[in-house]
Structures are given as C-alpha cells and as structure tokens.
C-alpha cells in the first residue's frame, strides 16, 4: 500500500469527488452548487488521466479533452440560466426555485 502507484491518484480523485457530491447536496447557493459540480468533473478527469497512464491508452486523455469542452459549454449555459432566474432576487437560493413540483 505504501509503494507509490497510480492508485494514490485514484484515491485522491475519489476523495475530491465525494467532497463535491456532499457539497452539492448541502449548499443552497446555486453558484456554489455549480462549483461543486466542477469539482466532481475534475475528479473524474483526474481518474481518466490516471487510467490512461496505467493502461497505456491515449483514449483516456481524449475523453478528458471532451469532458472539458462539455464542462465549459455546460457552465456557460448553466450560469446563463442562473443569471436569468436569479437576477431579480437578492439572496435567492436553490430552494426558492421550486415551481416544478408534482
């Protein structure tokens, strides 16, 4: 366990992912929730790169490339939505947007 292998990176990535997940559920500010999502994405990126190196496959890096592109697009649109909804209210948080209920 103490020999340094790629697994350590995986452990780190898992930790970051878990932290991001908890943060997403716990925080109410929509921007912070978004940042937690970014955390999780980064953790995944790290995992992919690690595996790419461990398994000697450049496909993992390609995936990371695409994840970044998609994350960028997602952030743009997501923030646009947040701006569109939240700009009129001060101190708005995710719990206030609950119109789509059953």
């Amino acid at each position, binding site marked *: 366990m103490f020999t*340094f292998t*790629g*697994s*350590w*990176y*995986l*452990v*780190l*990535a*898992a930790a*970051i*992912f*878990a*932290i991001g*997940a*908890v943060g997403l*559920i*716990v*925080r*109410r*500010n929509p*921007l*912070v929730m978004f*940042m*937690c999502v*970014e*955390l999780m994405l*980064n953790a995944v*990126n790290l*995992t992919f*790169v*690690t595996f790419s*190196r*461990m*398994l*000697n*496959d*450049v496909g993992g*890096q*390609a995936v*990371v*490339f*695409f994840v*970044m*592109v*998609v994350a*960028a*697009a*997602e*952030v*743009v*649109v997501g*923030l646009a*939505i*947040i*701006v*569109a909804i939240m*700009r009129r209210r*001060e*101190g708005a948080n995710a719990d206030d947007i609950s119109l789509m209920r059953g």
Partner: protein
Amino acid sequence: MRVEVFTFLVAGAICLFGAFGVVLFRNPVHNALSLVATLFGVAVLFIAQEAYFLAAIQVIVYAGAIVVLFLFVIMLLGVDRAEALESDPFTGRRIAAIIGGVVLLGGSLAVLLAAGQRATGAESATAPLDPALDDVERLGRVLFTDYIFAFEITALLLTVAVIGAVVLTRRTVGDPIDLVDFPEGTALDVWEAEHALEDEFDDEPEGDIADESAVESADDSAGDVADDEVVS
C-alpha cells in the same frame, strides 16, 4: 520517483484543501478562489502524469475561463451576502449527505483500488501512449482519427452553448424590472425620457414621459442610477 511522490503530496494537499474550501466557505468569492486552487492542483497532477497538453488546457480553460465566468456572475448577482448555513431547512439531510459521502468514498475506493490492482482493462493495442511521439501529437492523432465525429460535435455544442447563453440572458423590451429599486425604469427608459422632448420630429410630446418632474428626477438621479444600474 521521489520527485513524483513529493509533487503528488503537495499538489494533492492543495486539491483537498481547495475542495474543502469550495464546500465550506460562506462567501461565494472565497469558494471560487478555492476552486481555482483545486484546479491548479489538478493541473499539476496532470503534469506529473505526463499529460502536458491537458494540464495546459486545464489552466487555460478551467481556471482561466470558467472560474472567471463564475466570478463575473457573482459580481452580477451581487451574492456577496453570506448564506446562512445554519438555517438549512433539512438538517437531517445534511448529516445523511455527509454519511453518504463517506460511504461513497469508501465504495469508490474499494472499486477503484481493486480495479487498479487487477488491471481490469487490457492495455490498449490500438492507441498506446507511444513514447516516441510527443504528447500533443499523440492526442491530436487520436482525436482527428478515432474521435473525429465527437470532435466535430463538440464544435457544434460550443456554438449552441454560446447562442443559448445569449438568448437566455438578454432582456427584451418591456421586460419588467423591480420598480422599487429602479423607479425610473430601465436605463433605456431613462434615456428615452431624457431625449423624448428634444426629438424634433415629434409634434406632440408623449403622454407618460412628458412629466417634468420625472424628467428632472431622471436628470438628477441619472448618475446614481447609472452607478447602481445593472448593465446587461
């Protein structure tokens, strides 16, 4: 090897602190800065794993663009007021979330480590990390051959995202705004009020805007309004 261990330990610590910071800080700007720290740490880890191109992209796109976007929005929305963490209506859920996070962590570790030791995936025969080529070229080769379709689609995706952002955030004419904060209306209304009486083509002034007091107060408070006015 020792260099890599050291690099990992330092960068890993930065990542973890950043991650905790994102979750725990109250001020959204602090959260954003913690995110930058995490991203930077991840970039370093990329370099340690010889994915140089990706590290560069990480810094430029993530830390350079995405976090800046976050900060802009924080500025726009004026969310510098702290969010009261204590008054979460679902306290039970918070604890459950933390427990769940721990379980998730444990489970993920179990899976990842087992997988890592057993090397479940075969080493790639088709796209090996050819040491003769340099990193960018490797990635470029595989992107433009095996993943060319996905590549083109991401281009389309980005275009769509840009268009979507513009559409979502524009304010159409007649869009209601908070008249308590901005009693004169939008900046456009203010400008029209100022310039309506000067319009030489108008035979008669328009009813609503011909109110002198409104025009005067518009002139007086034009400066104030302009400062506070959200420019969109």
